[in-house]
């Protein structure tokens, strides 16, 4: 096989993307778990961990830049490297959503949760599950899986709508609960956005494998239609 060095370096980039993905998955699950337990210390650790996520993203970006400059990638290789640049930025932003949830946890101070968290952890679980499979599809360039995963965004949207309606009933019953309801709504909103970004990763995977640059699912339109 020609270009053995290049192949090895491409593999290292892919391994690093998987590592970054697993860090983000961890961060999303931890942010919701620490909120559920109202564990401020754990939330502070997530802020710390987000810096590591950002660092990893810059490390991969640098790796990609060097590969583009030294290997002059073409065709499939070019699509892979350019798309990976996009994918790591999506992952980094997902990490920011988890950080946002940790920040809400910290800002809530010693106020109790408005209600026990049920659907919010479900959203987080669904996000992580979709993300994990989206990254597997990216590594394997599995077009079929990449096209199927974004459909599941509807489930996350449905959970978000459920959380929204539930929180509104609290607000109507007791207007003093607005601030605490708003915090949880913001958490749910962040989790809803994670699934949208998973869709973007899937679109990149289709592009890498086929050269086709299309939107698989217009997540925002679907979302607002249901409001």
């Amino acid at each position: 096989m020609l270009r053995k060095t290049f192949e090895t370096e491409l593999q290292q980039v892919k391994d690093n993307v998987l590592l970054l993905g697993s860090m983000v998955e961890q961060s999303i699950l931890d942010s919701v778990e620490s909120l559920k337990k109202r564990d401020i210390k754990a939330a502070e650790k997530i802020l710390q961990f987000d810096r590591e996520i950002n660092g990893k993203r810059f490390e991969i970006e640098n790796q990609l830049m060097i590969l583009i400059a030294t290997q002059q990638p073409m065709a499939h290789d070019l699509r892979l490297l350019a798309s990976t640049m996009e994918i790591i930025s999506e992952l980094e932003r997902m990490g920011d959503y988890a950080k946002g949830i940790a920040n809400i946890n910290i800002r809530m101070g010693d106020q109790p949760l408005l209600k026990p968290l049920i659907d919010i952890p479900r959203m987080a679980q669904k996000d992580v599950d979709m993300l994990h499979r989206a990254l597997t599809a990216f590594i394997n360039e599995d077009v079929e899986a990449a096209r199927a995963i974004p459909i599941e965004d509807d489930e996350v949207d449905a959970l978000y709508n459920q959380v929204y309606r539930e929180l509104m009933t609290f607000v109507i019953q007791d207007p003093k609960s607005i601030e605490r309801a708003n915090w949880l709504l913001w958490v749910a909103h962040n989790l809803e956005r994670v699934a949208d970004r998973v869709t973007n990763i899937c679109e990149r995977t289709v592009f890498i494998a086929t050269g086709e640059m299309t939107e698989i699912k217009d997540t925002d339109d679907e979302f607002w239609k249901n409001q």
Partner: protein
Amino acid sequence: MTQPIPQNGTSKFVLEARSLGIYYGNFRAVIGVHLPVERNKITAIIGPSGCGKSTLLRAFNRMNELFAGTRIEGEINFEGQNLYDPSVDPVEVRYRIGMVFQKPNPFPKSIYENIAWGARIHGFKGNMDDLVESCLRQSALWDEVKDKLKQSGLALSGGQQQRLCIARALAVQPEVILMDEPASALDPIATLKIEELMQELKKNYTIVIVTHNMQQAARASDYTAMMMINDERAGTVIEFDETNRIFTNPKDKRTEDYVTGRFG
């Protein structure tokens, strides 16, 4: 009795190879090539060594006939006229379709004479000084040589010699310029100068370039033809498309393998 080829056509394609096969004696070097060459565009021919790129390029101005035993089948239309029709004068073909080679090959004469000579034997009757200046300006060499036109062309650097050869090709006012690896013997700066020059030249001329340098094809051309040999070792065009397409999303797996460096 030779007939002149129609002048200054306006059709989209200046040159067009149809079912072209080229033989050296019994050896079939090129088979079944269909290749349109669009006017005022740069068409690159890429492919591994020995796939018939230069043979195809030379067929475009009947240069192959200079080797004994060369035979052609199919046709190449130039301004709608089959170049291989018995009525066509190969000398006319070669000045209307000029050629620049891999190694700069100026005549061992002055810079001025390198350009004037071809024009003179083609019966140029105008102001020779103006023609020499115009050709040197078009080949982006004028500023570097205007004070030493009487010096030998061989005293120039490799990159300058190659631009002198381009100026020499322009002197007989061709419509098409064929370039066979014009920058492979040059350093990166001289290479970029040639590529920039090609972008200028395509406003007035049509260019076909053979190159081993894929980045060069990607940077400098509008269309790319990918050649490869078949099972019988005859070269053919396996994919032809816009250059952007060839280097981002080629259709043929063999093109993909070649442009990503995985061929072999």
